[in-house]
């Protein structure tokens, strides 16, 4: 027997083990699935899907340390693996490595969009990413608002003390003094109000929202008529409603859609400043 035939036979056997693993996985028998994938890996360690499938089983069992290990191996073999970056991101978030976890999710989102912009993975990854970003914002903004509040109290106390000191030097014009003192305190309060503004949830501006979904843009594309839509939404429209631009009603084909990078940047800048915009429901 030649070595190539051997290799083919081994690959075939590993593939059978994967099928077996998938079968067990569908029946929620994760332990048995892990055993099958482990055997497949022993035979063919260079097939990334064996690693990501095993990682998925570990995820189901909340064994995040092993999820991370398997995903890292899968990425070593194929650094374009959507699932490996996605689950690695989740594992990192699980141990509160926000920045790194978010980075992995963003990477998997970009890869997923390239492969299939309307796929379920893209939606799932976005939701996880938004959840992580929202949690991160909640954490940071709570801290920020406490710090501002205590700084405000200190500044007010200091200002009042100074006003008291000044009034003991100047005699008369009491009314005028009281008035300007109150104005100073009000101005100080406005400064602090302004500083807290970005962290107060309001409405996302219309120009950052898709005219069909009314949701903030994730992957905006522009039509020849100059109107911007969310990619998955306009693709759905072209498929189900008709081949026209929903606003201008001009004929429109899938191939005419171009990414609107400027709006994408604007959304990114907005969300960096207003993390509450990641709230999905």
């Amino acid at each position, binding site marked *: 027997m030649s070595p190539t035939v051997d290799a083919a036979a081994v690959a075939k056997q590993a593939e059978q083990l994967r099928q077996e693993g998938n079968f067990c996985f569908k029946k929620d028998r994760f332990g048995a699935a892990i055993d099958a994938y482990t055997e497949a890996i022993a035979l063919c360690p260079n097939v990334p899907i064996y690693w990501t499938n095993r990682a998925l089983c570990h995820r189901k069992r909340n064994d995040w340390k092993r999820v991370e290990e398997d995903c890292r191996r899968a990425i070593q073999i194929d650094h374009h693996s959507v699932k490996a970056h996605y689950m690695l991101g989740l594992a990192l978030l699980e141990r509160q490595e926000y920045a790194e976890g978010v980075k992995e999710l963003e990477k998997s989102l970009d890869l997923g969009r390239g492969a299939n912009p309307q796929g379920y993975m893209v939606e799932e990854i976005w939701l996880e990413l938004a959840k992580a970003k929202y949690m991160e914002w909640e954490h940071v903004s709570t801290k920020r608002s406490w710090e501002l509040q205590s700084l405000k109290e200190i500044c007010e106390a200091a200002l009042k003390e100074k006003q008291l000191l000044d009034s003991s030097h100047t005699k008369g014009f009491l009314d005028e003094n009281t008035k300007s003192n109150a104005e100073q305190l009000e101005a100080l309060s406005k400064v602090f109000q302004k500083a807290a503004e970005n962290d107060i949830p309001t409405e996302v501006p219309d120009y950052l929202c898709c005219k*069909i*979904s*009314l*949701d903030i843009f994730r992957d905006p594309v522009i039509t020849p008529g100059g109107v911007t839509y969310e990619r998955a939404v306009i693709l759905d429209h072209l498929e*189900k*409603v008709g081949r026209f631009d929903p606003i201008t009603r001009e004929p429109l084909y899938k191939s005419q859609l171009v990414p609107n990078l400027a709006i994408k940047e604007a959304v990114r800048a907005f969300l960096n400043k207003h993390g509450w915009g990641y709230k999905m429901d």
Partner: protein
Amino acid sequence: MSGPSPSSRKGLSKIACNRLQKELVEWQVNPPVGFKHKATDNLQRWVIEVNGAPGTLYANETYQLQVDFPEHYPMEAPQVIFIPPAPLHPHIYSNGHICLDILYDSWSPAMTVSSICISILSMLSSSTVKQRPADNDRYVKNCRNGRSPKETRWWFHDDKV
């Protein structure tokens, strides 16, 4: 009016639900002039009060619109009818069905309940005569089995309104 229309028997999709919630918030902040949304907890069926515009044939008259949203709104048009008594108008049948192209063939997902309302009011306002469509009796008889206006093959009498 009566039971749910065929198109609204299925619940709203997540996308539809999300969009309708946003439309409702926008409506509450900025309602179209002459319309009032009657608050209910049913997101899938809106009942809207319409007041005829001053200086038109329908001034000082009040009607009710019923809007039913399909599972895949806004990729599919909502069903919009007047709850009888419907206004006397050459494009409105006595059973409340409205002959207006944007509700059927010319629907676009970029339209909203608010923009539909504005179109309907402008259709009323531009009317010069208070009468039923010529084929009213025949049409209404054909709809007796509870047929939705969305299943009608409309031919649009003119494109002015």
